[in-house]
């Protein structure tokens, strides 16, 4: 299972990627799976074992980004 972070736009994904990497998180950029309808074709995939979701939320919301978190097998 992985976390998928879904954003409103490509610009938000790019901004979130920079912020999370700068904060020391590990992540992958992946195409948003077809079953998740989204305005944005890119999303961020993170592994639960090295991801503190609360910290992720903090970093992103502090910077004015809104997003949804999905869990994907």
């Amino acid at each position: 299972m992985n976390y998928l972070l879904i954003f409103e736009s490509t610009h938000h994904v790019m901004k979130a990627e920079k912020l999370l990497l700068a904060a020391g998180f590990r992540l992958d950029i992946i195409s948003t799976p077809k079953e998740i309808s989204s305005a944005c074709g890119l999303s961020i995939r993170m592994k639960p074992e090295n991801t503190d979701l609360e910290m992720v939320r903090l970093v992103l919301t502090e910077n004015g980004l809104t997003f949804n978190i999905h869990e994907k097998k």
Partner: protein
Amino acid sequence: MKTVDARGKLCPVPLIMTKKALTEMSENETLEVLLDNDTSAKNVTRMLEEFRMSVSLTKNGNIFKLTVTKTGEVPENSHAEDFCEIENQEISNYVIAFQRNTLGEGNADLGIILLKAFVNTLPEVNAKPRKMVFLNAGIFLAINDSPVLEALKTLENMGTEILVCGTCLDFYEKKNELAVGKVSNMYDILEVLATAGSVLYP
């Protein structure tokens, strides 16, 4: 709830049974499909996902149980047989030639993030490339600090052969940093490209 018991049936029978059952069901009704092998489970799942219906899979011993709710109409023009794929045939006869470390032309940051999404999505798709070739600045994708190293290693483990241009590694002084695939030369690379069913240039 309706049940389709496709145990002991070989492809494409489980697909046809599942599609037929779904076609006859009314919307929001739930269907259970029983299967006895992983390949059938994958094939049926792929078909249902193509139908845009979400599937859950449970495994009990050697029995696979797929549960799906009919959330829309079954596409009339879909052919159940098309989803019949036999294990190990998931690698198709196409080659991807990475000639740079971005995807497409335009904004550089966008090119980089698109490339990451492209490569990271490859392990998830059914039609995996037979080989991947890395040329010129494409070699930066195959070295230690590549942003897509993990996905490339996954693909290599799945059977995709990775060839990296030796001249290019040498030019960029990255020969010691190669992290995936094998060093190759123009003869081999040319032959790979020339004999591929098709070549993608991201």
